[in-house]
């Protein structure tokens, strides 16, 4: 059986499963559509949150980023998991007790202001749309590499599948497909990792393998990796970071951004009780950790494997001849994600850090005239089974897993967008007397529109795809998280305070990002070059969400204390979300 047929079987089989679940779990009411009827078991919800949260960025990109950055990029591991501690203790149980359908609805009710609700809707839509573009683009890459279809065609297939289960089933359909997608993606991620960990360290558990002895050399794996890459002029994998302030703020931005992302928060509205919301945050992190503890092992092992592929006789020996390169390098060259240029015309692939001035002399002595090999970080996980010579079915599994990660997150984001439009804008604004049937139809239509828009943007990604993800976290961190947290923990925060806080936090974050990355990301319109020398106190634009959040808190406190305290019924509302009794199912008003 050819690799193409195997991939087709895995991807086609998983898609058939998702559609089958969608037909089984159709949504009959707005409660089904927005919160899956409010009857999801906390462990089921934990797995669904895992798939909802782990996107193409977690599945495809993260290990590649860690492989490239080593210790410095541990920020992604801590940032994207630490947010769940904040969710479990500061937001999820109270928002579940509040018992409504959407995040802007809480902000609107708590700050007794339709304007606050609309500001929250705007933040939600910008954050979710930017995020969904990345998912669709990721699905396109997986399709074009594994199914040999044009990536636009692949995107349209993905869009149709999402359309069927998200529009039909709403949150109910999405919940159960996400559980299936979690199973597919975690199996796909861990199986190749187990094989590779066995090959390199003899330990079948990758997280333990990471700190075990490298079988071939007899020294610890990480020490071996440090040795190999520093001999090629690369930075020490485990080296400490100089700019600790930036590392702290980047991690903090990812954590509070994670806690403030609406598509994750609304998943907590689907469980029956407040206590279940707490448990499901714990289960969610267990399911997420299975991948996040495997990722750093995959990162270091894949990087070491890549080096031994290119330098089969060790880094002191000759690099591999281009004509002898393995099959997977040839296949990824076709996609443009691996590039080779024979600068010294010796027919071999010299791969080293040409940017390291101290290493230049050693390179010249070996007759090297520049680095000849570049690869895109994103291929590392997808090519991992091929790099380690694993059987064909593992490659098919990776294809299905990458697509599961992208589709499950896309569906969650699309639901957050459509419920904000139909429930917050239409029912909460334009047409409050809409019938339940009418609202359900509006939710389905806005979902369909959002899918078409996301597919279009995924096929024609704006040139700033990498930056916009930072924007999504920046917005969630600087606007939504502080507003939600203050709404629960600080009774004194009033409508004016909350709105000025959100606008100040959001404004400061956007301005700081635009100064370095261009106004509205239009290339060439940035005021300062995006280099560490120009950053304020060495804080990168990606790390500024945490500063934006601090500004939001400060402004909201100052303004609230200078103006009237919230009306008594609002203070009672805050009291009521703090005590679990009487939550009942998520209800409509």
């Amino acid at each position, binding site marked *: 059986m050819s690799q193409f047929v195997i991939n087709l079987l895995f991807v086609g089989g998983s898609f058939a499963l998702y559609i089958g679940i969608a037909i089984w779990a159709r949504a009959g009411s707005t409660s089904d559509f927005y919160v899956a009827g409010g009857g999801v078991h906390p462990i089921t919800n934990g797995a669904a949150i895992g798939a909802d949260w782990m996107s193409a960025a977690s599945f495809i990109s993260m290990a590649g980023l*860690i492989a490239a950055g080593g*210790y410095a990029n*541990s920020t992604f*591991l*801590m940032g994207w*998991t*630490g947010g*769940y*501690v904040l969710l*479990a*203790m*500061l937001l999820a*149980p109270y928002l579940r007790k509040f018992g409504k359908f959407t995040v802007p609805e809480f902000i609107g009710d708590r700050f007794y202001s339709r304007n606050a609700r609309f500001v929250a809707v705007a933040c939600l839509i910008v954050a979710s749309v930017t995020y969904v573009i990345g998912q669709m683009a990721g699905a396109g890459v997986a399709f074009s590499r594994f199914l040999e279809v044009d990536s636009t065609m692949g995107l349209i297939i993905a869009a149709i599948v999402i359309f069927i289960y998200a529009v039909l089933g709403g949150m109910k359909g999405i919940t159960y497909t996400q559980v299936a997608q979690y199973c597919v993606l975690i199996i796909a991620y861990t199986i190749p990792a187990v094989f590779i960990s066995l090959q390199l360290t003899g330990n079948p558990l990758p*997280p333990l393998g*990471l*700190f*075990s002895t490298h079988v071939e050399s007899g*020294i*610890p*794996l*990480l*020490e*071996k990796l*440090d040795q190999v890459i520093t001999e090629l002029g690369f930075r020490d994998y*485990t080296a*400490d*970071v100089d700019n*600790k302030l930036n*590392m*702290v703020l980047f*991690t*903090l931005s990812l954590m509070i951004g994670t806690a403030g992302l609406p598509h994750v928060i609304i998943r907590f509205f689907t469980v029956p*009780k*407040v*206590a279940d919301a*707490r*448990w499901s*945050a*714990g289960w969610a*992190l*267990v399911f997420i*950790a299975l991948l*996040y*503890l495997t990722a*750093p092992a995959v990162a270091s092992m894949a990087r070491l494997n890549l080096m031994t592929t290119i330098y089969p006789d060790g880094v002191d020996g000759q690099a591999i001849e281009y004509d002898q390169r393995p099959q997977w390098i040839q296949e990824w060259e076709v996609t443009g994600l691996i590039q080779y240029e024979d600068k010294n015309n010796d027919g071999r692939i010299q791969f080293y850090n040409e940017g390291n001035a101290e290493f230049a002399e050693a390179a010249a002595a070996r007759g090297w005239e520049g680095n000849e090999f570049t690869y895109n970080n994103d291929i590392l996980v997808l090519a991992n089974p091929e790099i380690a010579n694993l059987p064909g079915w593992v490659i098919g599994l990776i294809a299905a897993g990458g697509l599961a990660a992208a589709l499950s997150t896309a569906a969650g984001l699309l639901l957050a967008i459509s419920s904000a439009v139909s429930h917050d804008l239409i029912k909460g604004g334009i047409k409050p007397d809409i019938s339940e049937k009418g609202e359900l139809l509006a939710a389905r239509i806005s979902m369909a529109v959002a899918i078409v828009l996301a597919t279009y943007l995924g096929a024609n990604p704006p040139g700033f795809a990498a930056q916009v993800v930072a924007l999504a976290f920046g917005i969630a961190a600087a606007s939504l998280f502080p507003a939600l947290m203050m709404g629960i923990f600080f009774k004194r925060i009033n409508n004016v305070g909350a709105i000025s806080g959100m606008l100040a936090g959001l404004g400061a974050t956007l301005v700081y990002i635009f100064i370095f990355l261009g106004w509205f990301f239009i290339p060439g319109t940035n005021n300062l070059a995006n280099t560490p020398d120009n950053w304020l106190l060495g804080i990168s634009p990606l790390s500024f969400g945490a500063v934006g959040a601090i500004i939001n808190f400060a402004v909201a406190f100052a303004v609230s204390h200078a103006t009237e305290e919230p009306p008594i019924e609002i203070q009672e509302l805050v*009291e009521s979300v*703090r*005590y*679990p*009794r*009487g*939550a009942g199912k998520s209800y409509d008003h």
Partner: protein
Amino acid sequence: MSGHDYDAVNYWKANLRLIFGSLIVWALVSYGFAILLRPMLAGIPIGGTDLGFWFAQQGSILTFIALIFHYAWRMNRLDEKFDVHEE
């Protein structure tokens, strides 16, 4: 909450204490051990590197899981103790 105001205040204070304690641990393992205090832990070797690296890539995640389950367990008991749990 009428008639139980004293209990309600104590319940909320107990919750805040628990959150505060949990967040100190949360910050200590991630921002502390894994980032700012890493040079101080450099002398403790673990699998070819040092303890700070382990906290950055594994230890903090494991601690986060323990924190959430501990919090959920303690809060669910507090809910019953102060009689604010759901039936």
